[in-house]
Protein backbone atom coordinates (compact mmCIF):
# COMPACT_ATOMS: atom_id res chain seq x y z
CA UNK A 1 0.00 0.00 0.00
CA UNK A 2 2.85 2.37 0.90
CA UNK A 3 4.54 2.01 -2.47
CA UNK A 4 1.20 2.46 -4.20
CA UNK A 5 0.55 5.72 -2.33
CA UNK A 6 4.05 6.98 -2.99
CA UNK A 7 3.56 6.27 -6.66
CA UNK A 8 0.32 8.20 -6.73
CA UNK A 9 1.94 11.18 -5.00
CA UNK A 10 4.95 11.10 -7.33
CA UNK A 11 2.60 11.20 -10.33
CA UNK A 12 0.75 14.28 -9.06
CA UNK A 13 1.26 17.80 -10.35
CA UNK A 14 2.24 19.15 -6.92
CA UNK A 15 4.48 16.54 -5.34
CA UNK A 16 6.45 15.22 -8.28
CA UNK A 17 9.60 17.06 -7.13
CA UNK A 18 9.76 15.34 -3.74
CA UNK A 19 12.64 12.97 -3.21
CA UNK A 20 11.90 9.34 -2.27
CA UNK A 21 12.33 9.86 1.48
CA UNK A 22 9.91 12.78 1.48
CA UNK A 23 7.42 10.89 -0.64
CA UNK A 24 7.62 8.05 1.85
CA UNK A 25 7.05 10.43 4.75
CA UNK A 26 4.09 12.10 3.04
CA UNK A 27 2.64 8.73 2.03
CA UNK A 28 2.43 7.74 5.69
CA UNK A 29 0.10 10.69 6.26
CA UNK A 30 -2.13 10.09 3.23
CA UNK A 31 -5.32 8.10 3.30
CA UNK A 32 -7.10 6.66 0.24
CA UNK A 33 -10.65 7.69 -0.66
CA UNK A 34 -13.31 6.51 -3.10
CA UNK A 35 -16.13 8.72 -4.32
CA UNK A 36 -19.15 7.51 -6.32
CA UNK A 37 -20.32 9.53 -9.29
CA UNK A 38 -22.58 12.38 -8.26
CA UNK A 39 -21.19 12.72 -4.72
CA UNK A 40 -19.52 15.87 -3.40
CA UNK A 41 -15.85 15.74 -2.41
CA UNK A 42 -16.24 19.07 -0.65
CA UNK A 43 -18.74 21.90 -0.65
CA UNK A 44 -18.24 25.62 -1.17
CA UNK A 45 -18.24 27.31 2.22
CA UNK A 46 -16.93 24.26 4.13
CA UNK A 47 -13.85 24.74 6.28
CA UNK A 48 -10.72 23.78 4.34
CA UNK A 49 -8.93 21.01 6.24
CA UNK A 50 -7.60 18.62 3.61
CA UNK A 51 -6.17 18.43 0.14
CA UNK A 52 -6.79 15.68 -2.36
CA UNK A 53 -4.53 13.94 -4.85
CA UNK A 54 -6.54 12.34 -7.64
CA UNK A 55 -5.54 8.98 -9.07
CA UNK A 56 -8.49 8.18 -11.27
CA UNK A 57 -11.87 9.56 -12.22
CA UNK A 58 -13.11 13.06 -12.93
CA UNK A 59 -14.55 15.92 -10.89
CA UNK A 60 -16.31 19.12 -11.79
CA UNK A 61 -15.15 22.11 -9.76
CA UNK A 62 -18.07 24.51 -9.57
CA UNK A 63 -18.85 27.80 -7.87
CA UNK A 64 -22.32 28.88 -6.86
CA UNK A 65 -23.95 31.91 -8.38
CA UNK A 66 -26.95 33.92 -7.26
CA UNK A 67 -30.36 32.53 -8.07
CA UNK A 68 -29.50 28.88 -7.58
CA UNK A 69 -27.12 28.75 -10.55
CA UNK A 70 -23.55 27.54 -10.72
CA UNK A 71 -20.41 28.23 -12.71
CA UNK A 72 -18.07 25.48 -13.91
CA UNK A 73 -14.52 26.52 -12.99
CA UNK A 74 -12.64 23.46 -14.20
CA UNK A 75 -12.62 19.70 -14.60
CA UNK A 76 -9.90 17.75 -12.86
CA UNK A 77 -8.72 14.17 -13.08
CA UNK A 78 -5.84 11.81 -12.54
CA UNK A 79 -2.67 13.51 -11.34
CA UNK A 80 -4.41 16.72 -10.32
CA UNK A 81 -4.36 18.06 -6.80
CA UNK A 82 -7.46 19.69 -5.35
CA UNK A 83 -8.22 21.79 -2.33
CA UNK A 84 -4.69 22.91 -1.68
CA UNK A 85 -5.26 26.63 -2.23
CA UNK A 86 -7.67 26.98 0.67
CA UNK A 87 -5.10 25.29 2.90
CA UNK A 88 -2.49 27.89 1.97
CA UNK A 89 -4.62 30.97 2.54
CA UNK A 90 -6.89 29.48 5.19
CA UNK A 91 -10.61 29.83 5.59
CA UNK A 92 -13.32 28.09 3.65
CA UNK A 93 -13.68 26.37 0.31
CA UNK A 94 -14.29 28.78 -2.55
CA UNK A 95 -15.84 26.11 -4.76
CA UNK A 96 -17.46 22.68 -4.63
CA UNK A 97 -16.04 19.51 -6.20
CA UNK A 98 -18.47 16.90 -7.49
CA UNK A 99 -17.59 13.51 -9.01
CA UNK A 100 -18.61 13.19 -12.65
CA UNK A 101 -17.57 9.56 -12.58
CA UNK A 102 -16.31 7.22 -9.86
CA UNK A 103 -13.19 8.86 -8.48
CA UNK A 104 -10.46 7.65 -6.20
CA UNK A 105 -7.40 9.28 -4.72
CA UNK A 106 -5.59 10.27 -1.55
CA UNK A 107 -6.45 12.68 1.24
CA UNK A 108 -3.74 14.65 3.05
CA UNK A 109 -4.59 16.60 6.17
CA UNK A 110 -3.91 20.25 6.80
CA UNK A 111 -1.18 19.70 9.41
CA UNK A 112 0.84 17.43 7.16
CA UNK A 113 0.65 19.88 4.28
CA UNK A 114 1.53 22.84 6.50
CA UNK A 115 4.57 21.02 7.87
CA UNK A 116 5.71 20.24 4.36
CA UNK A 117 5.08 23.77 3.13
CA UNK A 118 6.97 25.47 5.94
CA UNK A 119 9.70 22.87 6.14
CA UNK A 120 13.23 24.21 6.04
CA UNK A 121 14.19 21.38 3.72
CA UNK A 122 14.53 22.30 0.06
CA UNK A 123 11.45 20.35 -0.89
CA UNK A 124 9.19 22.66 1.13
CA UNK A 125 10.23 25.46 -1.18
CA UNK A 126 9.96 23.15 -4.18
CA UNK A 127 6.34 22.37 -3.32
CA UNK A 128 5.52 26.07 -3.01
CA UNK A 129 7.33 26.85 -6.23
CA UNK A 130 5.39 24.11 -7.98
CA UNK A 131 2.18 25.38 -6.40
CA UNK A 132 2.80 28.87 -7.73
CA UNK A 133 3.03 27.42 -11.23
CA UNK A 134 -0.13 25.37 -10.74
CA UNK A 135 -2.00 28.51 -9.70
CA UNK A 136 -0.47 30.41 -12.60
CA UNK A 137 -1.77 27.76 -15.01
CA UNK A 138 -5.25 28.01 -13.50
CA UNK A 139 -5.14 31.77 -13.81
CA UNK A 140 -4.19 31.51 -17.46
CA UNK A 141 -7.07 29.09 -18.02
CA UNK A 142 -9.40 31.59 -16.33
CA UNK A 143 -8.14 34.33 -18.65
CA UNK A 144 -8.76 32.10 -21.64
CA UNK A 145 -12.32 31.52 -20.46
CA UNK A 146 -12.87 35.24 -20.12
CA UNK A 147 -11.54 35.85 -23.61
CA UNK A 148 -8.02 36.97 -22.79
CA UNK A 149 -6.02 37.35 -25.93
CA UNK A 150 -2.45 37.34 -26.92
CA UNK A 151 -2.90 39.61 -29.88
CA UNK A 152 -0.93 42.79 -29.39
CA UNK A 153 -3.05 45.44 -27.79
CA UNK A 154 -2.10 48.79 -26.35
CA UNK A 155 1.58 49.60 -26.59
CA UNK A 156 3.63 49.84 -23.43
CA UNK A 157 4.28 53.40 -22.29
CA UNK A 158 7.66 54.53 -21.11
CA UNK A 159 7.08 55.01 -17.37
CA UNK A 160 10.03 57.32 -17.08
CA UNK A 161 12.96 57.03 -14.74
CA UNK A 162 13.30 54.56 -11.96
CA UNK A 163 14.16 55.72 -8.47
CA UNK A 164 16.01 54.09 -5.65
CA UNK A 165 13.72 53.07 -2.86
CA UNK A 166 13.71 55.56 0.00
CA UNK A 167 13.68 54.72 3.68
CA UNK A 168 9.98 55.54 3.98
CA UNK A 169 9.29 53.25 1.01
CA UNK A 170 10.86 50.34 2.85
CA UNK A 171 8.89 51.13 5.99
CA UNK A 172 5.74 51.32 3.90
CA UNK A 173 6.58 48.01 2.18
CA UNK A 174 6.78 46.24 5.50
CA UNK A 175 3.10 47.04 6.08
CA UNK A 176 1.90 45.67 2.75
CA UNK A 177 0.48 42.16 2.43
CA UNK A 178 3.07 41.05 -0.12
CA UNK A 179 6.04 42.00 2.05
CA UNK A 180 4.54 41.70 5.52
CA UNK A 181 6.22 38.35 6.33
CA UNK A 182 9.68 39.07 4.99
CA UNK A 183 10.90 40.48 8.28
CA UNK A 184 14.64 40.95 8.35
CA UNK A 185 14.85 39.63 4.77
CA UNK A 186 13.01 42.65 3.38
CA UNK A 187 16.06 44.91 2.97
CA UNK A 188 17.80 42.23 0.91
CA UNK A 189 14.80 41.74 -1.38
CA UNK A 190 14.09 45.45 -1.61
CA UNK A 191 17.68 46.19 -2.59
CA UNK A 192 17.23 44.20 -5.78
CA UNK A 193 14.42 46.44 -7.01
CA UNK A 194 13.65 50.06 -7.81
CA UNK A 195 10.67 52.34 -7.52
CA UNK A 196 8.75 53.32 -10.62
CA UNK A 197 6.48 56.36 -10.46
CA UNK A 198 3.75 56.21 -13.09
CA UNK A 199 0.90 58.47 -14.07
CA UNK A 200 -2.66 57.26 -14.28
CA UNK A 201 -3.29 55.53 -17.60
CA UNK A 202 0.31 54.38 -18.14
CA UNK A 203 0.39 51.01 -19.90
CA UNK A 204 2.91 48.79 -18.14
CA UNK A 205 2.31 45.40 -19.76
CA UNK A 206 0.98 44.75 -23.23
CA UNK A 207 -1.19 41.77 -24.12
CA UNK A 208 0.77 39.33 -26.22
CA UNK A 209 4.08 40.31 -24.66
CA UNK A 210 6.34 38.87 -21.99
CA UNK A 211 6.61 41.40 -19.16
CA UNK A 212 10.17 42.61 -18.68
CA UNK A 213 9.76 43.22 -14.95
CA UNK A 214 7.81 42.12 -11.91
CA UNK A 215 5.74 44.83 -10.29
CA UNK A 216 4.15 45.23 -6.87
CA UNK A 217 1.99 48.25 -6.20
CA UNK A 218 3.26 50.36 -3.31
CA UNK A 219 0.80 53.24 -3.60
CA UNK A 220 -2.09 53.75 -5.97
CA UNK A 221 -3.42 50.93 -8.13
CA UNK A 222 -2.76 49.03 -11.35
CA UNK A 223 -5.46 47.10 -13.15
CA UNK A 224 -5.05 44.00 -15.28
CA UNK A 225 -7.69 43.92 -17.99
CA UNK A 226 -8.73 41.67 -20.80
CA UNK A 227 -9.36 43.80 -23.82
CA UNK A 228 -11.91 42.63 -26.36
CA UNK A 229 -11.94 45.30 -29.01
CA UNK A 230 -13.12 48.48 -27.37
CA UNK A 231 -14.45 46.65 -24.32
CA UNK A 232 -12.32 46.05 -21.24
CA UNK A 233 -12.93 43.43 -18.59
CA UNK A 234 -10.98 44.03 -15.41
CA UNK A 235 -9.47 40.84 -14.07
CA UNK A 236 -7.59 42.28 -11.14
CA UNK A 237 -7.23 45.55 -9.36
CA UNK A 238 -3.78 45.47 -7.80
CA UNK A 239 -3.84 47.97 -4.94
CA UNK A 240 -1.04 48.42 -2.44
CA UNK A 241 0.72 45.14 -1.72
CA UNK A 242 -0.56 43.36 -4.83
CA UNK A 243 1.09 42.44 -8.12
CA UNK A 244 -0.75 43.02 -11.41
CA UNK A 245 1.20 40.72 -13.71
CA UNK A 246 2.40 37.16 -13.37
CA UNK A 247 1.42 35.57 -16.66
CA UNK A 248 4.30 35.73 -19.04
CA UNK A 249 6.74 36.07 -16.16
CA UNK A 250 6.12 32.92 -14.19
CA UNK A 251 5.07 30.80 -17.14
CA UNK A 252 6.10 30.58 -20.76
CA UNK A 253 3.12 32.01 -22.56
CA UNK A 254 2.60 35.67 -23.36
CA UNK A 255 0.53 37.91 -21.15
CA UNK A 256 -3.17 37.71 -21.99
CA UNK A 257 -3.87 40.91 -20.09
CA UNK A 258 -3.01 44.56 -20.32
CA UNK A 259 -1.72 46.16 -17.14
CA UNK A 260 -2.43 49.84 -16.84
CA UNK A 261 -2.12 52.27 -13.95
CA UNK A 262 -5.67 52.92 -12.76
CA UNK A 263 -4.38 55.56 -10.38
CA UNK A 264 -1.12 57.46 -10.25
CA UNK A 265 1.10 54.82 -8.68
CA UNK A 266 4.42 54.01 -7.07
CA UNK A 267 5.54 50.50 -7.98
CA UNK A 268 8.24 48.22 -6.71
CA UNK A 269 9.90 46.82 -9.83
CA UNK A 270 12.20 43.83 -10.18
CA UNK A 271 13.89 42.97 -13.44
CA UNK A 272 12.83 39.77 -15.08
CA UNK A 273 16.25 38.33 -14.29
CA UNK A 274 16.07 39.21 -10.60
CA UNK A 275 12.53 37.87 -10.39
CA UNK A 276 13.64 34.53 -11.85
CA UNK A 277 16.61 34.42 -9.51
CA UNK A 278 14.37 34.85 -6.47
CA UNK A 279 11.79 32.35 -7.72
CA UNK A 280 14.39 29.68 -8.49
CA UNK A 281 16.76 30.42 -5.63
CA UNK A 282 17.26 28.31 -2.52
CA UNK A 283 18.11 30.84 0.16
CA UNK A 284 15.74 32.22 2.78
CA UNK A 285 14.97 35.35 0.77
CA UNK A 286 13.86 33.15 -2.11
CA UNK A 287 11.68 31.03 0.13
CA UNK A 288 9.96 34.11 1.51
CA UNK A 289 9.56 35.50 -1.97
CA UNK A 290 8.06 32.29 -3.38
CA UNK A 291 5.67 32.15 -0.45
CA UNK A 292 4.57 35.75 -1.04
CA UNK A 293 4.15 35.18 -4.77
CA UNK A 294 2.07 32.08 -4.21
CA UNK A 295 -0.25 33.75 -1.73
CA UNK A 296 -0.70 36.76 -3.97
CA UNK A 297 -1.33 34.53 -6.98
CA UNK A 298 -4.06 32.72 -5.07
CA UNK A 299 -5.71 36.06 -4.29
CA UNK A 300 -5.38 36.97 -7.99
CA UNK A 301 -7.09 33.73 -9.03
CA UNK A 302 -9.85 34.31 -6.47
CA UNK A 303 -10.39 37.82 -7.80
CA UNK A 304 -10.55 36.52 -11.37
CA UNK A 305 -13.09 33.86 -10.43
CA UNK A 306 -15.21 36.43 -8.63
CA UNK A 307 -15.06 38.65 -11.68
CA UNK A 308 -16.30 35.81 -13.85
CA UNK A 309 -19.09 35.13 -11.36
CA UNK A 310 -20.18 38.76 -11.52
CA UNK A 311 -20.23 38.68 -15.32
CA UNK A 312 -22.44 35.60 -15.27
CA UNK A 313 -24.69 37.02 -12.56
CA UNK A 314 -25.43 40.15 -14.61
CA UNK A 315 -27.06 38.19 -17.36
CA UNK A 316 -29.12 40.00 -20.01
Amino acid sequence: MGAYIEGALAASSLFSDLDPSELEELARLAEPFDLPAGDLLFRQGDRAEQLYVLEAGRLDVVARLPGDREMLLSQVGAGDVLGELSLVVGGTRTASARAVETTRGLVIGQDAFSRLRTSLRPTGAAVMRRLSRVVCARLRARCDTLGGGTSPGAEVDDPGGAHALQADDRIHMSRLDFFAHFGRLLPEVASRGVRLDVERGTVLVRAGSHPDRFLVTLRGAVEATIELGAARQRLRLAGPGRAPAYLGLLDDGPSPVVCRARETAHLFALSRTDFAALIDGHDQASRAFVDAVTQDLISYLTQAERRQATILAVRP
Partner: protein
Amino acid sequence: MCRVLAYVGEPVDLEDLLYRTDSSLLHQVYDPHLMSFLNLAGFGMMAWDERSHEPSVPFVYKTAEIPTFDRNLRSLSGKLRPTSLVAHIRGVTHSDREVVGPYNLHPFRWGDAPVALAQNGTLSAFGTMRYDLLPYIRPELASQIEGTTDTEWIYALVLSQLPTPAAGLTPEDYERALVAALELIREVRVRRKIADSSALNLVVCDGRCLVATRFTYDYGWHKDDLPSLAQRFKFVSLWFTSGSAYRRIGDEWVMGGGEHDRSLLLSSEPLTSDASTWVEVPEYSMLTAWTEDRVLRLRTRDLDL
Protein backbone atom coordinates in the same frame (compact mmCIF):
# COMPACT_ATOMS: atom_id res chain seq x y z
CA MET B 1 -17.29 52.62 8.39
CA CYS B 2 -21.04 52.50 7.75
CA ARG B 3 -22.94 49.64 6.19
CA VAL B 4 -25.62 50.06 3.54
CA LEU B 5 -28.36 47.73 2.32
CA ALA B 6 -30.68 48.14 -0.65
CA TYR B 7 -33.33 46.02 -2.28
CA VAL B 8 -35.70 45.98 -5.21
CA GLY B 9 -38.05 43.19 -6.22
CA GLU B 10 -40.70 40.92 -4.76
CA PRO B 11 -42.09 41.76 -1.33
CA VAL B 12 -39.51 40.75 1.29
CA ASP B 13 -39.81 40.38 5.04
CA LEU B 14 -37.91 43.35 6.40
CA GLU B 15 -37.23 41.50 9.63
CA ASP B 16 -35.30 38.85 7.67
CA LEU B 17 -32.93 41.45 6.26
CA LEU B 18 -32.48 43.47 9.43
CA TYR B 19 -32.36 40.69 12.03
CA ARG B 20 -32.69 37.06 11.02
CA THR B 21 -29.67 36.15 8.91
CA ASP B 22 -26.36 35.50 10.66
CA SER B 23 -24.85 38.67 9.24
CA SER B 24 -27.99 40.76 9.01
CA LEU B 25 -27.74 44.54 8.77
CA LEU B 26 -28.23 45.04 12.49
CA HIS B 27 -25.70 42.31 13.22
CA GLN B 28 -23.24 44.47 11.30
CA VAL B 29 -23.63 47.20 13.90
CA TYR B 30 -21.35 45.26 16.25
CA ASP B 31 -19.90 42.40 14.20
CA PRO B 32 -19.42 43.22 10.52
CA HIS B 33 -17.42 40.52 8.76
CA LEU B 34 -15.56 42.63 6.20
CA MET B 35 -14.39 45.37 8.52
CA SER B 36 -13.35 45.63 12.15
CA PHE B 37 -15.43 48.46 13.46
CA LEU B 38 -18.41 49.26 15.65
CA ASN B 39 -21.03 51.21 13.71
CA LEU B 40 -22.73 53.02 16.57
CA ALA B 41 -23.93 56.32 15.11
CA GLY B 42 -27.50 55.37 14.29
CA PHE B 43 -29.78 53.77 11.76
CA GLY B 44 -32.03 54.92 8.97
CA MET B 45 -34.26 53.29 6.44
CA MET B 46 -36.70 54.12 3.66
CA ALA B 47 -38.94 51.32 2.48
CA TRP B 48 -41.36 51.43 -0.42
CA ASP B 49 -44.34 49.12 -0.84
CA GLU B 50 -46.21 49.19 -4.13
CA ARG B 51 -49.34 48.09 -2.31
CA SER B 52 -49.29 50.91 0.21
CA HIS B 53 -51.08 54.25 0.22
CA GLU B 54 -49.05 56.66 -1.99
CA PRO B 55 -46.59 54.00 -3.08
CA SER B 56 -44.03 56.55 -4.31
CA VAL B 57 -43.60 57.80 -0.72
CA PRO B 58 -41.56 55.47 1.48
CA PHE B 59 -41.96 54.39 5.06
CA VAL B 60 -39.25 56.21 6.97
CA TYR B 61 -37.62 55.25 10.22
CA LYS B 62 -34.51 56.80 11.70
CA THR B 63 -32.85 56.70 15.08
CA ALA B 64 -29.60 58.16 16.34
CA GLU B 65 -29.54 55.49 19.03
CA ILE B 66 -27.84 52.13 18.63
CA PRO B 67 -30.53 50.24 16.69
CA THR B 68 -29.73 46.89 18.28
CA PHE B 69 -31.70 47.96 21.35
CA ASP B 70 -34.61 49.57 19.50
CA ARG B 71 -37.84 47.67 20.16
CA ASN B 72 -39.86 49.96 17.93
CA LEU B 73 -37.65 49.10 14.99
CA ARG B 74 -38.02 45.40 15.68
CA SER B 75 -41.76 45.70 15.91
CA LEU B 76 -42.00 47.79 12.76
CA SER B 77 -39.78 45.48 10.75
CA GLY B 78 -42.05 42.55 11.55
CA LYS B 79 -44.93 44.29 9.83
CA LEU B 80 -43.30 45.52 6.65
CA ARG B 81 -42.82 43.60 3.40
CA PRO B 82 -41.39 46.26 1.13
CA THR B 83 -40.74 45.95 -2.58
CA SER B 84 -37.87 48.40 -2.38
CA LEU B 85 -35.59 49.52 0.40
CA VAL B 86 -32.53 51.52 1.38
CA ALA B 87 -31.27 51.03 4.90
CA HIS B 88 -28.10 52.27 6.54
CA ILE B 89 -26.19 51.97 9.76
CA ARG B 90 -23.86 54.85 10.40
CA GLY B 91 -20.33 54.34 11.57
CA VAL B 92 -18.07 57.21 12.61
CA THR B 93 -14.75 57.39 14.37
CA HIS B 94 -15.19 56.96 18.08
CA SER B 95 -14.34 60.55 18.92
CA ASP B 96 -16.03 63.47 20.64
CA ARG B 97 -15.43 65.48 17.48
CA GLU B 98 -18.05 63.47 15.64
CA VAL B 99 -21.62 64.70 15.45
CA VAL B 100 -24.11 61.93 16.13
CA GLY B 101 -27.69 63.05 15.70
CA PRO B 102 -30.87 62.82 13.66
CA TYR B 103 -29.81 65.26 10.94
CA ASN B 104 -26.83 63.11 10.02
CA LEU B 105 -28.71 59.88 9.43
CA HIS B 106 -28.94 58.30 6.01
CA PRO B 107 -30.74 57.83 3.73
CA PHE B 108 -31.53 61.41 2.78
CA ARG B 109 -34.73 62.38 1.01
CA TRP B 110 -36.09 65.89 1.03
CA GLY B 111 -39.74 66.79 0.67
CA ASP B 112 -41.11 65.47 -2.59
CA ALA B 113 -37.68 64.70 -4.04
CA PRO B 114 -37.96 61.62 -6.20
CA VAL B 115 -35.00 59.78 -4.82
CA ALA B 116 -33.27 58.85 -1.57
CA LEU B 117 -29.51 58.48 -1.12
CA ALA B 118 -27.28 56.68 1.34
CA GLN B 119 -23.52 56.27 1.37
CA ASN B 120 -20.78 54.01 2.62
CA GLY B 121 -17.57 55.96 2.39
CA THR B 122 -16.07 59.31 3.26
CA LEU B 123 -14.55 62.22 1.40
CA SER B 124 -11.13 63.05 2.75
CA ALA B 125 -10.65 66.70 3.76
CA PHE B 126 -14.33 67.38 3.17
CA GLY B 127 -14.24 70.38 5.45
CA THR B 128 -11.76 71.99 3.06
CA MET B 129 -13.79 71.39 -0.08
CA ARG B 130 -17.39 71.54 1.10
CA TYR B 131 -18.24 75.09 0.04
CA ASP B 132 -16.59 74.62 -3.35
CA LEU B 133 -19.58 72.42 -4.18
CA LEU B 134 -22.08 75.25 -3.68
CA PRO B 135 -21.89 76.63 -7.23
CA TYR B 136 -23.08 73.24 -8.48
CA ILE B 137 -26.02 72.92 -6.07
CA ARG B 138 -29.34 74.61 -6.76
CA PRO B 139 -29.94 77.29 -4.08
CA GLU B 140 -33.30 75.90 -3.00
CA LEU B 141 -31.58 72.57 -2.33
CA ALA B 142 -28.55 74.05 -0.59
CA SER B 143 -30.85 75.74 1.91
CA GLN B 144 -32.15 72.35 2.97
CA ILE B 145 -28.80 71.02 4.19
CA GLU B 146 -29.15 70.61 7.93
CA GLY B 147 -26.41 68.25 9.07
CA THR B 148 -22.65 67.98 8.97
CA THR B 149 -22.16 64.96 6.72
CA ASP B 150 -20.53 64.87 3.32
CA THR B 151 -23.38 62.57 2.26
CA GLU B 152 -26.02 65.26 2.60
CA TRP B 153 -23.99 67.59 0.42
CA ILE B 154 -23.52 64.81 -2.13
CA TYR B 155 -27.28 64.25 -2.07
CA ALA B 156 -27.88 67.91 -2.83
CA LEU B 157 -25.31 67.73 -5.60
CA VAL B 158 -26.93 64.64 -7.15
CA LEU B 159 -30.42 66.16 -6.97
CA SER B 160 -29.07 69.27 -8.67
CA GLN B 161 -27.91 67.17 -11.64
CA LEU B 162 -31.34 65.63 -12.20
CA PRO B 163 -33.66 67.04 -14.83
CA THR B 164 -36.41 69.36 -13.62
CA PRO B 165 -39.23 68.88 -13.14
CA ALA B 166 -38.29 65.63 -11.47
CA ALA B 167 -41.12 63.49 -12.79
CA GLY B 168 -40.91 60.28 -14.75
CA LEU B 169 -37.19 59.93 -14.12
CA THR B 170 -35.52 56.91 -15.64
CA PRO B 171 -32.62 54.77 -14.44
CA GLU B 172 -30.50 56.55 -17.06
CA ASP B 173 -31.35 59.92 -15.46
CA TYR B 174 -30.09 58.70 -12.10
CA GLU B 175 -26.95 57.23 -13.67
CA ARG B 176 -26.15 60.50 -15.42
CA ALA B 177 -26.74 62.50 -12.27
CA LEU B 178 -24.44 60.26 -10.23
CA VAL B 179 -21.69 60.37 -12.86
CA ALA B 180 -21.99 64.15 -13.09
CA ALA B 181 -21.78 64.46 -9.31
CA LEU B 182 -18.71 62.22 -9.14
CA GLU B 183 -17.01 64.24 -11.87
CA LEU B 184 -17.73 67.52 -10.10
CA ILE B 185 -16.36 66.19 -6.83
CA ARG B 186 -13.20 65.08 -8.63
CA GLU B 187 -12.80 68.56 -10.13
CA VAL B 188 -13.03 70.15 -6.71
CA ARG B 189 -10.59 67.63 -5.22
CA VAL B 190 -8.06 68.36 -7.95
CA ARG B 191 -8.47 72.10 -7.48
CA ARG B 192 -7.96 71.73 -3.73
CA LYS B 193 -5.09 69.28 -4.26
CA ILE B 194 -6.85 66.62 -2.21
CA ALA B 195 -5.36 63.28 -3.22
CA ASP B 196 -6.16 60.92 -0.36
CA SER B 197 -8.06 57.73 -0.92
CA SER B 198 -11.79 58.49 -0.54
CA ALA B 199 -14.41 55.80 -1.02
CA LEU B 200 -17.81 56.78 -2.32
CA ASN B 201 -20.19 53.82 -2.40
CA LEU B 202 -23.46 55.64 -3.10
CA VAL B 203 -26.91 54.14 -3.35
CA VAL B 204 -29.88 56.04 -4.78
CA CYS B 205 -33.37 54.59 -4.88
CA ASP B 206 -36.80 55.92 -5.84
CA GLY B 207 -38.85 52.87 -4.95
CA ARG B 208 -38.76 51.49 -8.49
CA CYS B 209 -35.09 51.33 -9.29
CA LEU B 210 -31.80 51.60 -7.52
CA VAL B 211 -28.43 52.77 -8.76
CA ALA B 212 -25.25 52.20 -6.80
CA THR B 213 -21.59 53.04 -7.22
CA ARG B 214 -18.56 51.20 -5.97
CA PHE B 215 -15.97 53.90 -6.40
CA THR B 216 -12.90 55.37 -4.76
CA TYR B 217 -10.97 58.51 -5.58
CA ASP B 218 -7.18 58.06 -5.44
CA TYR B 219 -7.42 54.48 -4.27
CA GLY B 220 -4.20 53.33 -2.65
CA TRP B 221 -3.01 56.76 -1.50
CA HIS B 222 -3.03 57.68 2.16
CA LYS B 223 -1.37 60.87 3.30
CA ASP B 224 0.54 59.24 6.08
CA ASP B 225 0.74 55.78 4.52
CA LEU B 226 -0.97 54.56 7.65
CA PRO B 227 -4.55 53.57 7.02
CA SER B 228 -6.07 51.75 9.93
CA LEU B 229 -5.05 48.15 10.18
CA ALA B 230 -8.72 47.31 9.84
CA GLN B 231 -8.79 48.86 6.37
CA ARG B 232 -5.48 47.48 5.17
CA PHE B 233 -5.67 49.14 1.79
CA LYS B 234 -8.93 47.42 0.88
CA PHE B 235 -11.31 48.78 -1.72
CA VAL B 236 -14.54 49.35 0.19
CA SER B 237 -16.79 46.39 -0.48
CA LEU B 238 -20.18 46.13 -2.18
CA TRP B 239 -21.91 42.84 -2.92
CA PHE B 240 -25.16 41.69 -4.45
CA THR B 241 -27.29 38.64 -4.94
CA SER B 242 -30.29 38.17 -7.21
CA GLY B 243 -32.96 35.61 -7.92
CA SER B 244 -36.64 35.01 -7.51
CA ALA B 245 -37.00 36.00 -3.86
CA TYR B 246 -34.89 36.07 -0.70
CA ARG B 247 -35.91 33.49 1.83
CA ARG B 248 -34.76 30.62 3.97
CA ILE B 249 -34.43 27.37 1.99
CA GLY B 250 -33.43 24.48 4.18
CA ASP B 251 -30.71 25.75 6.48
CA GLU B 252 -29.58 28.67 4.37
CA TRP B 253 -30.79 32.11 3.36
CA VAL B 254 -30.56 32.52 -0.41
CA MET B 255 -32.19 34.07 -3.41
CA GLY B 256 -34.24 31.31 -4.98
CA GLY B 257 -33.87 30.25 -8.58
CA GLY B 258 -36.39 30.43 -11.37
CA GLU B 259 -36.91 31.23 -15.00
CA HIS B 260 -36.42 34.94 -14.31
CA ASP B 261 -34.69 36.89 -11.62
CA ARG B 262 -37.21 39.12 -9.87
CA SER B 263 -35.31 40.59 -6.95
CA LEU B 264 -31.93 42.06 -6.10
CA LEU B 265 -30.30 42.53 -2.75
CA LEU B 266 -27.32 44.88 -2.53
CA SER B 267 -25.22 45.21 0.60
CA SER B 268 -21.86 46.43 1.85
CA GLU B 269 -21.22 42.83 2.79
CA PRO B 270 -23.22 39.60 2.34
CA LEU B 271 -26.02 39.11 4.84
CA THR B 272 -24.82 35.58 5.57
CA SER B 273 -21.46 34.18 6.67
CA ASP B 274 -21.73 31.79 3.74
CA ALA B 275 -21.22 34.22 0.87
CA SER B 276 -21.21 31.57 -1.85
CA THR B 277 -24.31 32.95 -3.63
CA TRP B 278 -23.19 36.57 -3.45
CA VAL B 279 -21.01 38.31 -6.02
CA GLU B 280 -19.05 41.53 -5.86
CA VAL B 281 -19.91 44.71 -7.62
CA PRO B 282 -16.69 45.40 -9.58
CA GLU B 283 -14.45 48.20 -8.36
CA TYR B 284 -14.93 51.55 -10.10
CA SER B 285 -18.35 50.59 -11.38
CA MET B 286 -22.02 51.42 -11.24
CA LEU B 287 -24.84 48.93 -10.84
CA THR B 288 -28.41 49.68 -11.88
CA ALA B 289 -31.40 47.47 -11.05
CA TRP B 290 -35.10 47.84 -11.63
CA THR B 291 -38.05 45.61 -12.42
CA GLU B 292 -40.29 45.51 -15.47
CA ASP B 293 -43.40 43.37 -15.21
CA ARG B 294 -41.85 41.73 -12.14
CA VAL B 295 -38.72 40.74 -14.02
CA LEU B 296 -35.42 42.13 -12.74
CA ARG B 297 -33.32 44.20 -15.10
CA LEU B 298 -29.70 44.55 -14.10
CA ARG B 299 -26.62 46.11 -15.60
CA THR B 300 -23.19 47.26 -14.54
CA ARG B 301 -20.87 49.73 -16.21
CA ASP B 302 -17.34 50.81 -15.63
CA LEU B 303 -16.77 54.27 -14.15
CA ASP B 304 -13.68 55.56 -15.88
CA LEU B 305 -13.69 58.92 -14.08
